[in-house]
């Protein structure tokens, strides 16, 4: 706890130094080195605390609200999220040690990056409403500054604007939520908030928290800023925003919904579940339609956040019905997925950053065949793809498997509406898992496989060693968490105890390192054995085949059913790859319109294929809103151009009406 706070202080000082050293030649390395050190120390401290059974400790500093002070508290939940935050921070800093050299404007990144890390730590540690919101909004602010780092592009400026407005919207929603929690007396400290509330109030608080945290985490329809802002930032910052900051938002929601708020009624979980389902599906569908690599990843963040919120919603439902064990399973699945997503999403963004640095391209339509110039990057990226597609034996599968297990427990619920809703959500989850696999076949296949689609690819080279180190570190984490999920689940048990007053059977003793969420008869999964068998049979078959058939190999021109075409343009492009799925879902999900304009026969000239996709959230929510604001502004703006006499009559009217009120009052 104290250690983490010291690290935060160190980061803040580093931020101040960043202003100075930004221009220096070694400034980048120096600063990221400091961030790496601080994050690693904090990570170790938090990890130690978590594994040691999460002792609760708190500190009050004479800052913030004068009569309250700044309360900081470190419990199981906080420790876990500290681990997530600082793991992401450490790896991102390591990556940036190498990647930061490509930064054109370091003085716009270096001061804010450490502050951003510090803010995320503070949010997790905060134990009173003021400190929480201060750190929360500070986090948004620093990340906004980082998004604006490359402010010359008009898109980035717009992204930053949308991001900041959405972030402030979320903060204000949380502000209202805490206003309800604190009551008129202003009991802002978290420990004074654990009081019984009327179901209406708690429902209102939950809704506000969902708005606030959801707008930060990217729940549909509050997600619009995310695919704009995350790609705009420098890649290691994108990794932090996607992999870590959204998790801090999840933390905020869990803290309010499970800790501060007593027990919200069951139907609030219906809201969460349905929102989460929509988010999951829409997120992955949008992702499939993208051909900007980083934007695709950003949309996938939306999907994964949806998966996490499915787990949270299940936990809410189970807890409302007093099924502690099931609730523990659901929340464990959600938290496990939080960890996993932070791992592989950072990894993937690092890969995207390496591609961007190597080729200067984010558009997949201009990439291809990168596996030859950058084999190591593509290897790490492949691991990330397999992990995020929820394929065994990597970690993504484990958390989704746990979520499925939790869903299968749903018949125990009392409410019919939930019994009906949850299997539907399960279908959505399965669908989105399959779509995610499709999406990453596309992402990897178009970007790294095939033949180069633009000369930019040919001059690419493998990333520097720091970036590779960070990526392979994360890849190994993905593998370990997938093969040995048991220890992770055991580490999570203090959280589940404190959040839903239940816990999973301890996994340490199970044979062959299997995980048994409920009972061996209900379903078990053994990542280790699956991995072992797969490796074994792969090696066995390879050995056998080579023994039987020899290893003779001949290179030849691609056959391609008889008529190969030398031009790389004949390859499947990202758009054409997604076309069948677009046909299936597109017309409903985002009003996809395809137009092919053929030149008249005999005239030379290319046929033009035009594709139009709309984000319904924009069309139905944000565009009308902004239009209304504009209209109101125009109407009111006429007041700027009146004559003095009219202004005087305004004063006069105000006076007369007030006098009338006073006259008629008593």
């Amino acid at each position, binding site marked *: 706890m104290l250690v983490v706070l010291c690290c935060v202080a160190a980061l803040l000082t580093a931020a101040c130094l960043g202003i100075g050293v930004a221009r220096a030649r070694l400034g980048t390395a120096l600063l990221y080195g400091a961030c790496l050190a601080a994050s690693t120390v904090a990570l170790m401290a938090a990890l130690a605390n978590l594994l040691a059974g999460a002792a609760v400790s708190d500190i009050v500093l*004479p*800052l*913030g*609200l*004068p*009569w309250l002070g700044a309360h900081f508290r470190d419990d199981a939940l906080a420790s876990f999220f500290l681990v997530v935050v600082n793991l992401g921070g450490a790896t991102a800093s390591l990556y940036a040690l190498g990647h930061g050299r490509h930064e054109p404007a370091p003085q716009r990144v270096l001061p804010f990056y450490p502050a951003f890390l510090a803010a995320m730590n503070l949010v997790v540690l905060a134990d009173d*409403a*003021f400190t929480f*919101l*201060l*750190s929360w*909004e*500070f986090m948004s*602010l620093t990340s906004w500054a980082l998004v*604006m780092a490359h*402010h*010359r592009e*008009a898109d980035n*400026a*717009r992204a*930053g*604007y949308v991001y*900041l*407005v959405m972030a*402030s*919207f979320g903060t*204000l929603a949380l*502000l*209202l939520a*805490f*206003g*309800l929690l*604190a*009551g*008129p007396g*202003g009991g*802002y400290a978290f420990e004074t908030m654990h009081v019984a509330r009327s179901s209406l109030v708690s429902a209102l608080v939950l809704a506000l928290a969902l708005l606030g945290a959801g707008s930060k985490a990217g729940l549909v329809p509050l997600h619009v800023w995310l695919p704009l802002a995350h790609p705009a930032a420098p890649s290691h910052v994108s990794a932090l925003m996607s992999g870590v900051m959204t998790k801090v938002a999840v933390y905020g929601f869990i803290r309010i919904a499970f800790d501060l708020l007593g027990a919200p009624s069951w139907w609030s979980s219906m809201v969460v579940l349905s929102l989460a389902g929509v988010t999951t599906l829409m997120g992955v569908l949008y992702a499939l339609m993208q051909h900007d690599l980083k934007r695709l990843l950003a949309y996938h963040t939306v999907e994964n956040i949806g998966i996490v919120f499915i787990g949270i919603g299940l936990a809410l439902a189970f807890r409302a019905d007093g099924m502690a064990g099931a609730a523990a399973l659901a929340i464990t699945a959600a938290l496990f997925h939080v960890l996993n997503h932070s791992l592989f999403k950072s990894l993937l963004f690092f890969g995207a950053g390496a591609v961007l640095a190597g080729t200067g391209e984010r558009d997949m339509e201009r990439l291809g065949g990168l596996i030859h110039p950058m084999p190591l990057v593509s290897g790490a990226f492949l691991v990330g793809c397999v992990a995020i597609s929820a394929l065994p034996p990597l970690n993504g599968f484990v958390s989704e498997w746990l979520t499925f297990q939790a869903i299968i427990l749903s018949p125990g619920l009392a409410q019919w509406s939930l019994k009906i809703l949850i299997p539907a959500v399960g279908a959505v989850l399965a669908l989105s898992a399959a779509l995610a696999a499709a999406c990453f076949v596309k992402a990897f296949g178009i970007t790294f496989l095939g033949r180069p689609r633009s000369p930019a690819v040919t001059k690419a080279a493998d990333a520097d060693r720091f970036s590779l180190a960070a990526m392979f570190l994360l890849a190994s984490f993905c593998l370990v968490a997938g093969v040995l999920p048991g220890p992770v689940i055991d580490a999570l048990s203090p959280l589940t105890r404190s959040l839903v007053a239940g816990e999973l059977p301890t996994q340490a003793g199970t044979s062959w390192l299997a995980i048994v969420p409920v009972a061996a008869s209900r379903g078990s999964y053994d990542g280790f054995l699956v991995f072992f068998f797969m490796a074994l049979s792969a090696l066995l078959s390879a050995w056998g085949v080579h023994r039987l058939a020899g290893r003779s190999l001949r290179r030849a021109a691609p056959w391609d059913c008889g008529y190969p075409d030398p031009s790389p343009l004949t390859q499947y492009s990202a758009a054409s790859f997604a076309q069948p799925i677009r046909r299936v879902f597109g017309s409903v999900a985002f009003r996809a319109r395809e137009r092919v304009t053929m030149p008249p026969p005999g005239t030379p000239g290319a046929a033009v294929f035009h594709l139009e996709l709309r984000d319904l959230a924009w069309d139905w929510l944000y565009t009308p809103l902004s239009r209304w*604001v*504009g209209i*109101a*502004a*125009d109407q*009111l*703006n006429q*007041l*700027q151009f*009146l004559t*003095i006499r009219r*202004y*005087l009559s*305004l*004063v006069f*009217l*105000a*006076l007369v009406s*007030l*006098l009338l009120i*006073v006259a008629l*009052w*008593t």
Partner: protein
Amino acid sequence: MNILSVGAEAVLLIPLCAAGVLAALPGYLGPARINVGASFLTLLAASSLLIEAHPAPGRYLLVDDLNVVFLALNAFVGFTTSVFSASYVGHEVETGRLTPAYLRFYHAMYQILMFAMNLALMANNIGIMWVAIEIATLTTVTMVGLYRTHEALEAAWKYFILASVGIALALFGTILVYVAAEPVIGEGLDSMIWTTLLGRSASFDPALLNVAFVFLFLGYGTKVGLAPLHAWLPDAHAEGPTPISAVLSGLLLNVCLYAILRFKMLMAANAAAVAPGPLMVTLGLLSLLFAAFMLYRRRDIKRMFAYSSIEHMGIITFAFGMGGPLANFAGLLHMAMHSLAKSGIFFAVGHIAQAKRTQRISEIGGLTETHPWLGWSLVLGVVAIAGLPPLGVFMSEFLVVTSTFARAPLLAVAFVAGLLIALGALFLRLNGIAFGAPRGSNAPVKASYAPVFAHLALVFVAGVYLPPPLVSWFQHVSRLLG
């Protein structure tokens, strides 16, 4: 009049003497320095007030928990503004927008303005308070018209007429208060001494007090710039010299709001009188929403920040209207924070306008690249007044919203909507001004950054740490405000 305390007298006398001297001196370099020096002495005197125990209130003057903070703030902003105006005015003279003759007048008026505001703050007599505010108004009117352009004269005239009407209304309210007090306290000066009034106001005639408050609120409210009485404010800020815009936004609005607060205390002390809360809440919310929407269509950078001043005055009035210890505390804090942040912004804006040779937002762009210091300090300032942490405004807005929502949810929602709309507008413009491809000239400008940084630093510190004495003063006052 009886000696209150050396510091208190000094706060009044130094500016007065300085005004006399400056009116006599030619040139601009020397007077500018004298101006700075005098303001600095005033600052010293005011800070001595902070340290020493409050002297017993006299018949004309008093120093208490409420005004001591604002006296210090006044003196501080007065000092920094004088520093800023030294370099600003120098540039104006070089470009020939001002002649030394005008400057003599300008500096003298500046000190008189300081004197008048300090007097209004320290006055223990509602009549003197009124007179002081009138003087302050007249001086600012003359300074707004300083550039003698059509727009400047227009703005000055609009300001003058509306302010005169406001003053008249305020005077009527003052007379009514006297009439209400006279039967209880007796004829003569005693019925105008604020401390006495506060002590006895419980037995005043409530109906009379209500009418009086209506007049006082509208009268002084005109000068606070509450919608729909705001009309003079944007143009006066936009057309006058930037130091005056800074003083107007930072100090004069506060002083007039302070006057309203004094009378609100009277109302609060009288049980039978109508509670002024709803009235203030209504006008505050109206100003907030109105200004928030107006921000979207601004093309002149100074006028934009003038509208944001209207917005913040609305916020403060709303807070005091809500009442309760938290909201009142927030209101007082917000007054201080806003005056620091806004004057700091105007310092930056003044130099920006000089560097880019225009006030049109559409012709300013990419400041963070062409003039990094100016640009980033503008960004920081906007972040501050948009109510983003870790700066002080965030704390006050946090307190207002949280304390309101538990009591009047709908009001809080409207309030929050206003904040969000205003923030959207501010950052929409900031995107164009501070970021993106550079527009306008990128010639280096001789600017004095110290005042800007000093203000922003104070706002930042207040955002994370408030000194205990300040807190205790504010808490005491918020109890009085009811």
